[in-house]
């Protein structure tokens, strides 16, 4: 068992060290949601009227509404970023080191996932702290109860990144991930507008939003930020995490893939 914990600590630490070495990444990851919060939301406040929907008990400003979605955005971008770094690792060869370790491959990939999720969560809290400075606050307990929700959502989106990394052959293909995964997932979700608003425009778009796992991740975070549990969001997010993780494991199965062919 100690071998498992030793490897977990080392992999998480390596992700942390890599993160410290890439301070620009941290700043970029914070600037993106802050621009949405402080510029986009301010502009849209007047355009979008929001009714009282759970978990909110009073009228809220648009800024308050999109905070959980922006937390999800950080996790989504980081999940994809870690997929990018896995493809980079594979091109640079350091993935080979991980995959030739005598510990089970599934465990090592899980540790990698955990490391990148932990860093994403730190960024979410940095974002929430800055939002609080601008007077966009959640109930005090919400900051604590959000942690498990962020973990589950982060693992789900990280598992999606892991899955994508097993299929992306080269670093250059990453632009496709941007266009075909990040943007549709983000815009076809409840991150920026509640689903009933979407239903007013198009039933089809509403249905797509409703099956998007990112919607459920955002709703899970939204309720958790108000110290409430949304069981169906939790269930769907866990289910999506399990499916993505299982598919990623198949993607990294040495009998099926040619990881390491390059170099």
């Amino acid at each position, binding site marked *: 068992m*100690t*071998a*498992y914990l*030793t*490897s977990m*600590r*080392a*992999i998480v*630490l*390596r992700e942390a*060290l*890599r993160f410290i*070495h890439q301070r620009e990444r941290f700043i970029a990851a914070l600037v993106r949601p802050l621009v949405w919060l402080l510029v986009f939301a301010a502009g849209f406040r007047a355009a979008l009227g929001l009714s009282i929907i759970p978990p909110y008990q009073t009228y809220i400003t648009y800024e308050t509404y999109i905070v959980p979605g922006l937390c999800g955005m950080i996790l989504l971008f980081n999940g994809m970023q870690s997929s990018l770094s896995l493809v980079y690792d594979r091109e*640079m*060869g*350091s993935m*080979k*080191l*991980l*995959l*030739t*370790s*005598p*510990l*089970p491959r599934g465990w*090592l990939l899980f540790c990698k996932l955990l490391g990148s999720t932990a860093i994403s969560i730190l960024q979410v809290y940095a974002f929430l702290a800055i939002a609080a400075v601008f007077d966009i606050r959640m109930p005090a307990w919400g900051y604590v109860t959000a942690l498990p929700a962020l973990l589950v959502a982060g693992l789900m989106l990280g598992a999606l990144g892991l899955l994508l990394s097993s299929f992306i052959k080269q670093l250059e293909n990453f632009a496709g991930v941007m266009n075909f995964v990040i943007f549709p997932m983000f815009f076809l979700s409840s991150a920026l507008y509640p689903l009933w608003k979407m239903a007013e425009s198009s039933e089809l778009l509403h249905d797509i939003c409703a099956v998007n796992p990112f919607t459920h991740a955002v709703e899970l975070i939204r309720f958790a930020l108000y110290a409430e549990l949304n069981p169906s969001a939790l269930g769907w997010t866990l289910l999506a995490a399990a499916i993505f993780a299982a598919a990623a494991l198949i993607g990294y199965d*040495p*009998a099926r893939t*040619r*990881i*390491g*062919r390059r*170099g």
Partner: protein
Amino acid sequence: MTGLEAHGLSYSYGKKKALEDVSFSVSSGAFCALLGPNGAGKSTLFNLLTRLFVAPEGRIVIAGHDLRSNPRAALAELGIVFQQTTLDLDLTVQQNLNYFAALHGLSGRNARSRIDAALDQLDMRERAGEKARALNGGHRRRTEIARALLHDPSILLLDEPTVGLDAAARASITDYAHALAEQGKTILWATHLTDEVRSEDDLIVLHCAHVLAQGKARDIAGDQPLQDRFLAMTGEDA
């Protein structure tokens, strides 16, 4: 006792056959050179031996452990130096070794003493705090060899480890690998350079997905220099 065995390995990339019915064995404690021109299938063979790929046909036995049925025990006996550097260039030598030790479940005092010993062996102790990016090619290779030896594997696989090194670094690393074989490690050394092979070494010649010859280097060379014999076998002009 056999260190490393391969039986009937085949592998293709689509229609292109990279290896076809490749079988060989390397005795325990031998220095065995795997000689082949570029594109012969050496790297594919390394990917199979390290389980980055799994061959649809054939069997690999590492220090008595079948790689297919008992991959973890087999991988624990392998030290690997990949052709392309696999150091994290932003980490120090020490941090790179710590990371690798942990991937093998080594930690604390045990890991520290092994790392110190490996760095001493390769004359890299005073560079432990330097970032891998600051090291020259020869020192990076030494770090990788030190790393590959950390978990005390019985077999060391090196895939063209001297590529891009100057003559002195090349000679020093080749000598060191031979010394390791004398100390009892089984070495499989892939190369396309005949001057890295000594006459008393075991030799496997791989060409166009097939093993062309296997035996002592001096027997394969016969009465000609190994270089000439190799070029004649692989149909390349001298």
